[in-house]
């Protein structure tokens, strides 16, 4: 698409890199990304870091600024040991969903690898962050760094005022409930940092002024059964019960927490919410980045801007990351999201350009349309893993991966092969795989259903078993202890089967 004629001039040779080379290469990559692929990206900020710093970044869930907590130290020690023993390499890059989009590249990477990494992270992931509807809806790329720095400062301040141990206890408990601290359906309001701070102060003021009825221990009315029932319903309505966001509920209604503790819970909840879209788009995000780097590197090679040696190194790394071992291979660890995402996106391009009969039957609206760029960009913007698989997983890819599904029923002494990659199984396999990627199925379904506020303040939760799968008992009890610490009174969880009556 690039109109400007240019003489093929190598961007770099050999494996050493310097900043001029990086700049030149990034410009070449950018040209293809923006003009050929038509990507829409945040401004890039590419930071070169050492392996030690990469380990640091690893341990604080990839975020550049994070508050202090022992669990990050634990992860650091864990990664460090694996790395020092040579059991595991480090990631070549980490990219952060922020504006400007920050990517970290390791200094040890060769120049070819740097080019690959920049194409992958600074353009592939970056485009996905900026365009996918989940990220647009749930995360605030402009404000995330400010918010993290606010969070870090606030928690450090709390540690000074209230002691490290006390803050740590709250964080431990809040972390345990982090997966249950996201709104899955409701979209959170977008706030700037200042609004956030103002709202916090306002909340504290309001809470101090008005004594909430939770604290009011005087019985007001007699316990007439009808009246009590009505009152209970009214109260539940007022507290928006049932509530699936347990951290949100605790932040607002826990009878024992002090204002700063509520704020810490809020911080943990917000960070959890920030990562929620990442969980739902792992496959697409990586697939998009791999597709982009593969296309760009091939373009650079085709136009003579990188030599064969560099291209071979790129391909070597590319195929290392995109290996999909078979289920009976000792390296098998589930389906590799890089491999499947990339394969699906390459397949979409194939369907658009040269569809077979099967493809015309399966994908009548895109088969042979030729404009694969539009189709892919539309997919990147409007789908998440589950719906993407549901919509675009083609028989070709299923055959290529030789997919089959197993049913494991606890009551039977065998696994049953339910579907394989044949004419009868394609649709069921696709449904089944899509369900695996559906967070609504993979995540626990736990809700706060009732609390007898005027009585014993007994917090009641309900967990819905999916397909009869219970909660892991040891972790459930440990997590309940954390919940009890934040609630202050007795906590109980009831596990019910799917489809059981939800009336309380």
């Amino acid at each position: 698409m690039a109109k400007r004629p240019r003489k093929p001039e190598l961007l770099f040779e050999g494996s050493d890199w310097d900043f001029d080379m990086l700049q030149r290469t990034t410009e070449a990559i950018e040209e293809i990304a923006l003009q050929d692929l038509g990507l829409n990206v945040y401004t890039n900020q590419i930071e070169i870091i050492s392996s030690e710093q990469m380990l640091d970044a690893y341990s604080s869930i990839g975020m550049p600024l994070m508050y202090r907590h022992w669990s990050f130290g634990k992860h650091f020690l864990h990664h460090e040991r694996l790395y020092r023993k040579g059991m595991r390499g480090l990631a070549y890059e980490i990219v952060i969903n922020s504006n400007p989009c920050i990517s970290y590249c390791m200094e040890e990477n060769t120049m070819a690898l740097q080019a690959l990494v920049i194409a992958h992270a600074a353009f592939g992931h970056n485009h996905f962050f900026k365009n996918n509807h989940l990220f647009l809806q749930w995360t605030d790329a402009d404000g995330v760094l400010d918010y993290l720095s606010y969070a870090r400062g606030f928690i450090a301040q709390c540690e000074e005022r209230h002691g490290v141990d006390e803050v740590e206890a709250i964080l431990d408990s809040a972390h345990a409930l982090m997966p249950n601290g996201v709104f899955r359906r409701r979209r959170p309001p977008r706030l700037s940092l200042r609004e956030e701070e103002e709202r916090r102060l306002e909340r504290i003021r309001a809470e101090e002024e008005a004594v909430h009825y939770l604290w009011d221990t005087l019985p007001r009315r007699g316990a007439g059964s009808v009246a009590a029932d009505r009152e209970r319903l009214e109260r539940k309505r007022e507290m928006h019960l049932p509530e699936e966001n347990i951290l949100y509920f605790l932040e607002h209604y826990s009878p024992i927490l002090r204002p700063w503790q509520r704020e810490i819970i809020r911080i943990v909840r917000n960070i959890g919410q920030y990562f929620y879209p990442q969980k739902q788009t792992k496959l697409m995000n990586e697939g998009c980045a791999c597709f982009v780097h593969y296309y760009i590197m091939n373009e650079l090679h085709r136009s003579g801007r990188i030599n064969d040696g560099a291209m071979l190194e790129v391909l070597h790394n590319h195929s290392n990351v995109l290996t999909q071992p078979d289920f009976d291979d000792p390296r098998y660890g589930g389906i590799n999201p890089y491999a499947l995402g990339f394969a699906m996106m390459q397949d979409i391009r194939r369907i658009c350009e040269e569809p077979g009969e099967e493809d015309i039957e399966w994908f009548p609206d895109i088969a042979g349309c030729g404009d694969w760029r539009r189709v892919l960009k539309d997919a990147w913007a409007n789908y998440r893993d589950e719906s993407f698989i549901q919509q675009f997983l083609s028989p070709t890819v299923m055959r290529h991966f030789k997919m089959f599904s197993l049913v494991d029923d606890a009551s039977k002494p065998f696994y049953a092969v339910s579907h394989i990659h044949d004419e009868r199984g394609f649709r069921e396999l696709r449904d089944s795989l899509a369900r695996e990627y559906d967070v609504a199925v993979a995540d626990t379904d736990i809700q706060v259903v009732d609390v007898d506020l005027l009585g014993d303040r007994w917090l009641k939760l309900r967990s819905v078993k999916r397909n009869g799968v219970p909660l892991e008992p040891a972790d459930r009890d440990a997590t309940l202890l954390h919940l009890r610490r934040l609630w202050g009174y007795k906590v109980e969880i009831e596990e019910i089967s799917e489809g059981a009556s939800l009336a309380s």
Partner: protein
Amino acid sequence: MAHFVDRRLNPKDKSLGNRRRFLKRVRAQVKKAVNETVNKRRVADVDRGESVSIPADGISEPSFHYAREGGRRERVFTGNKDYRAGDRIDKPRSGGGGRGRQGAAEGEGEDDFLFVLSRDEFLDIFFEDLELPDLIKRSLKEIKTTRTQRAGFTVTGSPANISVKRTMSNALGRRLALNRPSEREVRDLREQIFALEKVSRPTKKQREELKRLHDELETMLRRQRVIGYIDPLDVRYNYFVQKPEPNAKAVMFCLMDVSASMGEREKELAKRFFVLLHLFLSRRYDKIELVFIRHTHDASEVDEDTFFYSRETGGTVVSTALVEMKKIVDQRYPASEWNIYAAQASDGENFSGDSARCADLLLSQLMPLCQYFAYIEIVDEEEARLINSEANGMELWRAYRGVAAKLGNFAMKRIARPADIYPVFRELFARRSEGAENG
């Protein structure tokens, strides 16, 4: 438009704080692991960093999640070979196997958590109940000590280090060489001019003389201006270098009573005592050899494992160990080449009558060769409370007290807890400042 930031020079160890927090949290478990390591390791190897494994229960991060067993679940796999829909695969009998690999992500599962402590962290924990003063902890952790030493002169330096003598003599030499007129010459000339100017009616000759003198004075003054009294070229500074403390060879003798009365606890305490002395020596000497001598009624040189772990029966004759040590010193470690240190641990029992011989051996033969001799008597905690006087004690203790009274480099102490060990060495550590002559 991308921009690049080079972060490589940013401070490292961003997560050091988190790491410390983690270690604090698992302090108790790590301490146990470190203690086990100390017992397991060779005396000379104790201060290496250590891979520590601690049970995961204190540091698990629980959350609500579905169990891996139970209910009905369906999963998609890749790489089908010959399965067809409807095939059945028997479940493995005893859990694990088969699909077990999918479990146990990091942080979950029952496995121990394994990580590596740095040397500093390891020593911190090792020192914990030895109750060392902080200064000594720090100096033990230092790997090398250095001393400032004069190393001639240099042309650059800080004004505080200026060498006045050298600077002035340089200046003098240069003034002589360049023939700079001295103040005295100038003064003489001025006097002559003054005298001539006083003449009310100078002759022609005198006038010419005066003019000549004036010219000469001008030349002199110009020379003085051009050739400075002190030129930056003359300035010299004292130069100092950091020289590593003179390191030499040292040999450390570990003597221990291994008769049946020395139990596990006694040996563990003794080991800490030996380790601490070794740490101290390793800071001061490049090369340290360890000699282990164990004794019952008879003494022999053994390797470290035998020293700490093998059991012997028999009576106790302490002097045999001293005789053995003397023999080894004579054979292999001439006192002119080696710094000799000795550490002896015992429970205080000795064959009656032998103690006097020990004291005699020490005074006449061993102590003249040794830099330092430390003796600990390991007692029960209750016993330690009962024996409250230094003067009381068994025969060996009383005999050694005689030696200690006569010699400054003999230290002795009763020990019931790890915290008691350090005072034995207090003097040794205190002698650091004047310790150079030992090197």
